[in-house]
Structures are given as C-alpha cells and as structure tokens.
C-alpha cells in the first residue's frame, strides 16, 4: 500500500508498464485493463477458473484522493473491461480506494480481508465476490480457497 503511494510508483510495475507507457499515474480503468491483459491472460489457472464461472458483472467505484471517483466495469465470462456505469444492475458493487485497488490487483491486498475490515464497501451477490477473489488469487499463483459445497464455483 505504502509502496503505491510513492511518486511514479507504477513505473516499476511490469504488469502496468507492459500494457501502457504513460507519463502520468494510470487511471483505475488503465489498471484494470493492465490486470486483465498482463496478469489474468498470462495465468492458465485464472483463465480456467474464469471460464467455469457464469457471467458476472462487477462494478468498481474507485476513489482517488486527487482525481476523485472513477467508475469502471469488469465483466467475466466473457471478459470485458469498460469505463462508466453499467446499464444493468451489477452482480457486485465494490467501492474502493484507488491505491488499495492497485494493491489488490497487484496481489498485495486480499479483497475479502478488505471487505471484512471495512476498507472496501461491497454490495450485491457475495458469491461474485468469492469468484473475484478466486480470480485474483489464481492470477498471482495463490492456492484457491475451497468453496462450501452449496456455493461452489460456477453457482449463479
């Protein structure tokens, strides 16, 4: 977290710079795009997990201390990332600080831990939160938490 607050913090993050070479701090949309292209796509486990999920629409409201609020959408199965508000009710809404968002995508912070500690506000279908956690964990090579029987991977 502290690492992300340093000046030009993103310039030594390969997963970001391989996707875009901007002089200024990337937007949340840039970060999510970089995460999908450079991390998720590079992980066979993450692709496999995402492929077993039903369609998910996740709406992030990312709050930057200077730039303000940014609204982005992640769709899983099929994958898509776009800016703005979703037109349909999202499966999951997450309101998160920009730097925590960057740390989460970079594998430094656990999304569920942040939810339970109150750092992230989550609303909607919690199973989608678990799906997102699985995707994040798989993409950085962490072991996936075995789901409870009734809410196993792929449950709508």
């Amino acid at each position, binding site marked *: 977290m502290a690492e992300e607050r340093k000046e030009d913090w993103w310039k030594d993050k390969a997963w970001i710079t391989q996707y875009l070479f901007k002089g200024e701090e990337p937007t949340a949309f840039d970060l999510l795009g970089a995460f999908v292209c450079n991390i998720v796509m590079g992980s066979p486990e993450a692709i496999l997990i995402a492929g077993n999920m039903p*369609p998910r629409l996740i709406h992030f409201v990312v709050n930057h201390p200077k730039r303000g609020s940014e609204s982005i959408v992640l769709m899983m199965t*099929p994958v898509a990332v776009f800016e703005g508000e*979703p037109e349909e009710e999202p499966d999951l809404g997450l309101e998160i600080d920009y730097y925590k968002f960057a740390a989460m995508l970079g594998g430094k912070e656990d999304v569920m831990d942040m939810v*339970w500690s*109150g750092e992230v506000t989550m609303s909607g279908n*919690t199973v989608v939160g678990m799906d997102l956690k699985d995707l994040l964990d798989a993409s950085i090579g962490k072991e996936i938490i075995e789901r*409870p029987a009734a809410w196993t991977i792929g449950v709508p």
Partner: protein
Amino acid sequence: MGEELSEEERIKRFVEERKKKAGEERTKESGMSARERDYTRELYRASQKFIDIEKGRDIYQTMKEIWGAEPLYEVDEKMYHRGGYRQSIRKKEFIDAGKQIAIKRGLPSYSRAVGLPVGQRMLEPMPVGKWGITIEQDDSHHMNNTAIQQLNDDIKRTVIMNLDLAHRMLQVRVGKEVTPETLNFYMETLQHTMGAGAVAQEHMNEVNPYLVKDAWAKIITGSDEIMDGLDQRYYIHIDELFHPDRAKALKEAIGDSIWVVFRVPTLAMRMGDGECTGRWAAMQNTMAFISAYQLSGEHVISDLAYAFKHARVIHMGDKLWGSRVRGRNEIGGIPDGFIPDIIQCERDLPLMPYVEYMTQDDAAASKAMTRMSEGIGGIAAMLDNTLWLGFYMSGGIGFSNTVATSALSGGANEDVLSEFSNLGAKYLRGKLIPAKWDIMKVMLNMVATYVIETYEKFPTLAELHWGGAHKTSIMGTVGAGVSAMLTGSSTMGLWAGNYTIASAMKEGWLRTGWAGQEIQDHMGMPYLCSFRPEEGNLTEMHGENYPMHSFSAGHGNQRAAANYGAMMGRGSAWCLSPVVKVAFADPHLAFDFRRPRYCIAKAGIKEFMPDGERTAITPACDILDRGILKDTMKEIPF
C-alpha cells in the same frame, strides 16, 4: 460565433467523434448483448449443474429422513392418499383415549368429528436436535412433554440469595462465629427446611419427603478456600462442570462471596406461582439460620428475613407489567440476558471468541454454532414460543408451539449454520469482524441469501417450516446469531435480526408472512443505537415488556440468539450474571440445561422423569380414574 476551423481540422474532428461514438456503441453493445444472452440462457442451465452438489448436503439427508421422499422434488404425489390423521400413531391414540374418557365420565371429550378435517398432507416426524431421536409433533406440546414442563419449573423454582450480609449481621450484631463447621451445619439444616421440614419440631404440619425430594439448596462461591472447608455435597463444583478456562473466569467473577441457590419443590411452585419461590426460600432459609445459629427473638431475625427476601436476592424474573401482571420468577419477567446464563450448552467448550474457533478448523466452528442452536432451540424457543406465547399468552393448542418445533428440529437449522461456519472459517480466517454496519450487512445479505436459497431449493424444508412465523423465526435467529457470534456485540446481533427479517427477507420474498410484523424490525435498527431505556439500552436488559420490539412467535429466538451469540462471540463465560450461570449447571436438576433438546426428545418418547409428581399421596388406580368425577364422590353424603 462558432470556432473557425480549417477543412482539415474539421475532418479530423469529425473522424475522432465518429470513432469515439462507435467505440462507445461497440463497448455498450458487446457488453449488453453478452450479458443478456448469457443471463437468459445460461443461468438456469447453470443451476441445473449443481443438483448433485445439493444432494451432498447434510440438509438433503435430513429432509430425506424426515419426509421419506426426494427432498428437491416439488410435487407431493401422495397428497390425499396418506389417510389424514391415521398416519399418526399419536393421533390415533388420542382418539381412543377420547372415546374411553367420554364413556367413563359421561361427557364428550377429544373427538376429531367436531373439527375441520384437513390432514391431506404428511404429518411428518420430527428429529429433535442431532441426538438421533425422532418424535411426533404432538409430543412437543408442552402439556405432553414433561421435559418442557420441567424446564419451566426448574427456572421458576430457583432463587439465589447472598449470605455475606447475613454472615456479617451474625458476626457483628449477634456475636456468632461463622466457620466451615457452622456453614456445613446450616446447609444440612437447609436441606431439611427446604422440603418444609420443621426446625421447631412440635405441632407443625410437615410435608411428605417423597413429594419434595426435588427441594434442596447449594452454595455457589468462587473461593477454593471456602469450598475446601465445605462438605462436597453442599456446593456446586464449578471446576468439574465447566471447561477450566470458563471455571477460572467464573470463579474470579464470583470471588469470595457466598451465594446459595435454592430449589423450591416443583409441586409447591406449581400450586402457587413463581413468586412463591422467593417466599418459600426466604422463609425456610431464615428458619435454617435460626436453627443452625441458635437465634431466638433477636431483632436480627427480622433483618435476616429482610435480607433473604429483598436485599441481595436474585430472582430469575422481574415482576410483570400491569396488563400481564404476575409476580417475580415467571417466564415473562426473565431478562433476556439471563437466558444465555440459564443455557449451559457451551460450558465444556474452551473460552475463546467464536472467530478463534474458526481458526482451528471447520469442525470446531461448527461445534460452537451447533451449541448455540442447541441452547436457542431447546431453551429460548421453549421459553418464548412454547411457554410465554403458547401458554401464558394464549393457552390451549399452543399455536406458537409449532414455531418452537422448527427450532427443535436441529437437523435443518444446524445443517445451514454449519455450512455457514464452514464458509466463515474459509473466508474470515480468524479475523474479528468490527461491529460496523456496512461490513455486517454484507455478511447478513450473504447469510440471508443462503437461507432463502436453501428454502427455495428444498421444497421439503419450506414444508417443514410451513408458516411465515417459522421462516421469520429461522431467518431472524440465523441473522442475529451469526452477527452476534462474529462481532461479540448483542446490539449488532439484534440489529442484524431486525435487518434480516425486515429488509433481506422482505426484499427476497416480498413478504415476511404471519408473525413478520416487521414494523418493529424497521424501528429496531435506529432505536437500537439509542441508550435510552425505552429505546435501545443494553439488549441484555430487554425483556417481554421492552416497547420497541416485535413479540411475535417469529421474534423470540432472535433476541436470545443475539445475546447468547454475543456471549460466545466475545468469548465470555457468562452473559449477565456468573452466579446464574453456575446455578443452572447444578447436576441435581432433572432438566439438563446443557442438553435441552436431548431432554425434550427423551420426554417425547416418554423416557424423561420429571420432578413434582404426586404419586406418594394419590391412590393407586387406573389412569382413567384420576381426576375424573368418580363413583366414590356419589358415595359421600351431602
């Protein structure tokens, strides 16, 4: 005036705008079309893939056992073919008994001919808790179930008095010495006087000891030194009855104080009421003091009597309010915080917050959750639904009894709760949840969705918990219990119960059903933030007369779940009183407060022997002759 642009710039801008618009349209179109297509076709197909997983759940097996049919199947093909009441052994027995009684007494009795003949559905058997005992629904009516009666009696016939003030009076004002020897002699005398044995042994009407064999008194103290000096029969052995960590905490809290818990005879309390308990105990305790310490005529006796009746006395229930007026020690007056102290289900578990159980393994977390359900289902549900609502408030058939039975049928509730424990153990990993609403709401939505989904997937579960009150009760209890267990906050627990019923359940099903009455739940959320006595206050201090709460059959358990869950969530050894907690660990009690549903199940199969029976003074005769106007009455001349 518009901006002057060159031809080249205008074309460039036009191309850029077209590109931007096309990009937006493409993003929007591809996004939406993918979503719509997938949602209409995939979701229902996807849900079909998980039927095999549902069949692996414990609740599937429980439903199969209860119904003897496919739990996920929505059609009851045996409807109208079960033979109505004839499918129940108990109801057939009742019909035979009704006929016999009618013949014997010359007045009609139980007769199904006078009622509305429903009964095309299955009268399902009820597995109680997870003790492997199945009873019929009728067996859980409090009039048929001696264990539920004894639960009621054992609470109402208990009163606890402190001896420190009395001992000080003896030492300072009468100059008597209080030693282990005098204390043991006093306790021996007390066992005699509690059964209405006379100490001034002349011209006194005493009671047949067989009638009052359930009358006794025991010391409660936290001091090992005092206990060492006492006869082992006369005190409650905290170290043996509680987990060592709990015993340590309880002993520290009680300290060197000496309390005595009195058990007034069941029969005496039943003839009078709970208020008689304090009077009987104070009277007989004063007599024991007079005899053991050889007091006569001193003015200190009136002060002793005052101390035992009013000064440092713990009654199990407060006096009730005007419109429901009753004395102390009645079920409606029990403070909510005493119920977790009366419940003993957790007493052998290690003393630690629930989230720490989660760090150990799934089984430990599930065990703690199961114990909470055992206590809530076996004691709180009986006190509130069966006894208070179904007996004091309504009587007769006890319509709210059926709601209580949904809490008894642990196979269904605990399966859901243990699955949730499993979920929590995996995702929380021992982290204490801050008592913040935004966080708890996420958790509650998850739990409420889970329970709602389970009802929807299992038509048999929805049929088992057939009324709105049943489902409201389960939803509120699960919501309150889980939140309280995770946060250790009873206010958060009750808040969560309110939210689960009034918001989550209402949003999920658009109705809460009979006993929903969620207006109080809506009020509960803001009101619980207040500390004014008639609004929020400590939830442990609430009771049946707290104004801003729904007292429907669907709401009783959630109050107890919030308090008991919070106690376990905090890792506390007691809720409101360590003395009350120890008092109900007494192994001499007929009702086992550690295994309440086991007692109720045993009573359902007629294997529980209650106290307070009058066999010693009744004639040996056929059951049909008892209590019926008999020929003997005709022989008595007017």
